[in-house]
């Protein structure tokens, strides 16, 4: 039980982690991430790499939709922009991977800023439809701009090289993707300790009074779109390197909905929500697959019955979250924390 956390300076009181306990848990988390690849098998390392990519993209979408209130269904398409930029650079210039990743994220930002222009006039459902439009256009470009994207055949990408080592397996790639994920999540958390993050939340909560208080709505809305697409582009670039091949089918509209579901399940407008949501959405199908494997011996013809059932259960879980835990996993986490805060005196 913690009674208080007295501070002597305002800087200390404004810190990201305000108590020693929080620092300790953060250190434990980092340490666990560091030993994870040595204890987990290849399959689980693969999963954590995939989760990291999804966390980056989900965090980006949460900044845009959860914090700024601009519903977007274009996140997967922006990932595609980042992935294709990385793939093209990798095949045509041979520039180092970190330059390619930054260029991919930069290109996605530029496209995202253009795709965000409708947000200056419309919001809510209308904006969602406008972003669907943008993602259809991008999909069309991925398929038909053959000289760059090689159309439906797709592009192969060589794994990134660091100091002569090829990061061609999940256990090596892990050391690229996880640090990037940790840094990008911390950057996002920092953003909401400053005037820019507050402006985003103000736009979500009451855009008109935000404007009277001196917030330039078009500027900050576009900035939010830019940041979300930057995160998407970075995630897309990592995706391209991770899987080594991309084609237009890699970034369907369904994937954008996946990210939207992730922020809803995780918790809109919380950094923790992006992390938990991405983990949940990536792992649940896997866990359900284990469930299917477990149930298989008891049922005839398991693959035909259980595989569709798995998808249905996944859908039901998401509906369940909307109904019973609308603030998402982050809220459950907060409740648990509050419980232990006063434990064992009042529970």
């Amino acid at each position: 039980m913690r009674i208080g956390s007295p501070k002597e300076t305002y800087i200390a009181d404004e810190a990201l982690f305000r108590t020693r306990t929080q620092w300790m848990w953060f250190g434990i988390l980092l340490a666990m991430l560091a030993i994870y690849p040595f204890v987990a098998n290849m399959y689980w390392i693969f999963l954590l790499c995939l989760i990291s990519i999804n966390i980056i993209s989900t965090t980006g979408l949460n900044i845009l939709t959860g914090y700024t209130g601009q519903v977007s269904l274009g996140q997967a398409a922006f990932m595609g922009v980042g992935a294709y930029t990385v793939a093209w650079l990798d095949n045509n210039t041979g520039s180092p991977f970190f330059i390619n990743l930054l260029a991919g994220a930069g290109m996605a930002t530029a496209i995202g800023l253009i795709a965000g222009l409708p947000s200056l006039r419309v919001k809510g459902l209308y904006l969602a439809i406008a972003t669907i439009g943008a993602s259809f256009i991008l999909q069309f470009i991925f398929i038909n701009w053959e000289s760059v994207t090689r159309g439906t055949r797709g592009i192969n990408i060589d794994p990134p090289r660091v100091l002569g080592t090829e990061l061609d397996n999940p256990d090596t790639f892990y050391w690229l993707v996880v640090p990037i994920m940790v840094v990008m999540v911390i950057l996002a958390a920092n953003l909401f300790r400053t005037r820019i993050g507050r402006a985003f939340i103000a736009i979500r909560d009451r855009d008109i009074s935000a404007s009277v208080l001196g917030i330039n709505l078009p500027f900050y809305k576009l900035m939010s779109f830019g940041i979300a697409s930057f995160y998407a582009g970075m995630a897309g670039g990592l995706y391209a390197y991770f899987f080594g091949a991309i084609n237009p089918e890699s970034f369907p509209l369904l994937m954008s909905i996946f990210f939207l579901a992730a922020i809803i399940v995780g918790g809109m407008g919380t950094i923790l929500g992006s992390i938990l949501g991405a983990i949940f959405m990536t792992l649940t199908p896997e866990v359900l697959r284990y469930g299917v494997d477990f149930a298989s011996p008891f049922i005839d013809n398991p693959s035909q019955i259980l595989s569709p059932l798995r998808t249905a259960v996944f859908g039901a879980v998401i509906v369940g979250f909307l109904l019973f835990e609308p603030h998402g996993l982050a809220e459950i986490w907060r409740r648990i924390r509050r419980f232990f805060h006063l434990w064992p005196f009042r529970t």
Partner: protein
Amino acid sequence: MSILNVEGVSLSFGGVKALRDVSMQVEKGSITAVIGPNGAGKTSLFNSISGFYKPQEGRVLFEGEDITRLPPPRRAALGLGRTFQNIALFRGMTVLDNVKLGAHVRMRTGLLSAFWYLGKARREEAEIREQIEREVFDFLEIDHIRRHPVANLPYGLQKRVELARALAMRPKILMLDEPVAGMNREEKEDMARFILDVKEHWGMTVLMVEHDMGMVMDISDQVYVLNFGQLIASGKPAEVQANPEVIQAYLGSGDVSTLREKLGARKRVA
């Protein structure tokens, strides 16, 4: 010296004339009140000044500069702070963040420094925090709730947080839209004291819309009375109180012929 001049402002929504040729001056360092019956156009006047509505005719001058066509954020940057009639706090943020947001126009942190929380971001956040604690939280006595989400606060405190947010901007003129509406007597007295302190200790100019006559007459230096979008009287509180037209606007007149005359006059104007 007047800090804010409204010159012949007219505003209409379709056929409804919300404001007709309204002119007023707000003296620097004074408390000026705008009163009038429901639907008289007080909030419309406020919204025209803060840039929400664009009047069809007339000008709004702030410190001699024509701001009629400026978008609201630019007016905020010039020093127009305001609160809203129905509380317009950002419900997803804590009290502290709401008040810090009020200081948005005074801060310069860029995106890169915000991401890394180094240099300017770190310095500015600490500075603004210290200022808010010293000037605003201490003054309005809300330091105990700084970490509370605003959504769960009682009404009176929410109103106070809204005032805090406007003060954090350090505006040159503070516009209060019904600062004591819906408050009990004690909360009203607190609020009146805060408004007087804002004027006397900070030297800030206050322009307010208020229904509570007791408070208006007690604390304001200058009163403007609106009725049906028109300015019908202005002056010191005592003068306005004695003005027969004001009394008529508030209490109505039993005399049928004056009512007819008034309706006829309105038809001619329209």
